[in-house]
């Protein structure tokens, strides 16, 4: 069934568009004027001003590796993150710790740990899957580079970003 829409009856002035145009102009010019006097503050000037202090606790920035209270690198290269990573951004080369290493009990460590930040989708599955509390998504988010190679974070860079994290479970204690 056809529905008849009741059209408004416009006066001549309304039909000439002009009052509406001038009302509109007064609104837009009002905004213009307020902006020119610096009364409106909406935009944040990004690199100079940042919102970092407002980032939520669960913010997911760049993934990075951490060391613990004893200076031990947490990662034992179990490669679960490499397995779970949806865009396959992580590449790990496992290695074996020497007998003389202070943490020789751990036996295994990542010889190389690479995250291709061009591929990374910041999903946080690596952090979720990690059984060693070794990889965390930091609050850092401004990752830039001028080459593809620069965008691949290697182990050194990952530990630089991750730094030291305290209060982690110490399951590799030699006495345990």
């Amino acid at each position, binding site marked *: 069934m056809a529905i008849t829409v009741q059209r408004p009856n416009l006066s001549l002035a309304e039909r000439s568009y002009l009052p509406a145009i001038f009302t509109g102009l007064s609104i837009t010019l009002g905004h213009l004027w307020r902006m020119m006097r610096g009364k409106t503050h909406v935009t944040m000037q990004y690199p100079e001003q940042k919102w970092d202090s407002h980032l939520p606790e669960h913010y997911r920035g760049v993934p990075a590796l951490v060391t613990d209270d004893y200076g031990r690198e947490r990662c*034992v290269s179990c490669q*679960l993150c490499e397995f779970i990573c949806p865009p396959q951004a992580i590449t790990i080369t496992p290695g*074996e710790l020497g007998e003389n290493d202070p943490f020789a009990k751990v036996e*295994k460590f990542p010889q190389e740990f690479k995250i291709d930040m061009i591929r990374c989708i910041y999903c946080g599955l690596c952090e979720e899957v990690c059984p060693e509390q070794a990889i965390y998504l930091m609050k850092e988010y401004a990752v830039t580079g001028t080459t593809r190679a620069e965008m691949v974070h290697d182990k050194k860079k990952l530990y630089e970003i991750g730094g030291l994290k305290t209060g982690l479970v110490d*399951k590799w204690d030699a006495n345990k």
Partner: protein
Amino acid sequence: MVNIQVDGKWVQVPKGTRAIEAVSKHGTFVPHYCYHPKLSSPGNCRMCLIEMGSPKMGPDRKPILGAEGYPETSWIPRPQICCATDVAEGMAYRSHSPLIDECRKGVMEFLLINHPLDCTICDQAGECHLQEFSVEFGQADSRFLEEKVKKPKKVDLGPRIVLDDERCIMCSRCIRFTQEIAHDDALGFTQRGSHTVLTAYPGRPFANNYSLNTVDLCPVGALTSKDFRFKMRVWFLKQTSSVCTSCSTGCNTTIGSRENIVYRQTPRENNEVNSEWMCDHGRLNFHFLQDEMRLTEPLARQADGSRKPVPMKRAVEEAAAQLHQFKPDEIAVIASARMTNEELYLAGKLIRTLGVTMFDILPRPQPADGILVSADGNPNTHGARLMKVASDDPGRYLPIIARKVNEGAIKALICLGEDATACGVNPDVLATLPCVISLAILPNMTTAAATVLLPGAGFTEKRGSMINGKGRLQRLNRAVEIPAGAGDDWEILRDLIAALGGGNGIYTIEELFKQIAVDAPALAGLSLSKIGDLGLDLKDKLSP
């Protein structure tokens, strides 16, 4: 056949069947650690506990029959292990009951009491029975508050094996394997109770040629392979069914590879060939394909005597052009029984296209060990005979070829996968020979002297078939890609024959096999896919 009752259902099973097999087949899967169908049953892991019952006997010592005509069961009031008993007439089994579930949970808890829970660094993770069964039958948290027992870790058992005693669950599979299969009684338990440790005999390394099978047998990560240790997690590995090419036994294998790198080779069950085992030598004999020295650049000798890298197509043309300059009796062909049937067929075709009369393969006699290692080190001697590249006495013509080359009667040598110097050719003569065509994987004296060098593919990189020493036709499958620059051997040979005017028209290995099946009566009616993963027995069809 005997009648037994499994989970309330009466079935017939062959006499002599282990109860665990019968229950797993007709009921539900029974978890187990120590039991292995190819080994004896000590019954020491206690994981396979089920409820059993025997027929209820009347006063006349005859079974009391129930409504369906089957005997009524009198259940044994406690759980029994089912891995150590054979089935008997009228026996009843229950693989699922509240009692059994409790038992399994309890056994799992005991097994995990002293387990280090270091799955993150354990190579077994992903194919570990402890992980699988604790997910299925175990519980999530531990009630154990005491100190765990400390045991030796990272024990160097032998040249190829590392032992972590803390992970060991004392199933004794490895001990039984070394005793019963490898006949090298090298392993054993020492200490008692929860301090029991697995050790090798003092002062004697666990070094027999079958030691790596214990790594496969170990249901947990206690025994690990030094070669594979910490190299790659097993869940990344792509599994390709193939065949070992290290001797004429042709053990069935699974190649584990990831991103074009082979990480390990494990035996694949084939009761006609290798049961579930393979020797350490064959298992580790794939690293040469990933060697830095691997040949990946076709070379051709230029007019000025220097050798220059050329594309494969150009190298094959160059080889044909060089061969055209010689009369058939000035050319010799040394083929290899390490080649597949398909390659050998084309080698035979090449020999006949050139009209060469001097050709043979290099035999590789070696001592057999009575277990798996065969006396013939070539994996495909039967194939070479079948394709008429070798006589019934392989290597008979090699000394003649070597002499003719050394005397200068033969001026052109085609070496397919073999080193001419190993066949008796004088290296100095070889270096000055006007035409040496070499199809090879790794550098040797012949490739150094080659006027045309054709880099080929290794056994993990190609498809094809081989006939093992017992006349079984088996199939190789491609696990990884051929390195850039190198070519598939059969394609190189096909192109060479085509360039020599032999014609071809074959574009796939399947087509090639079909053509072989037409030409070789022993393979009549077969195709590559018909061979299947377990191979086909051609013993009767092959001429003695």
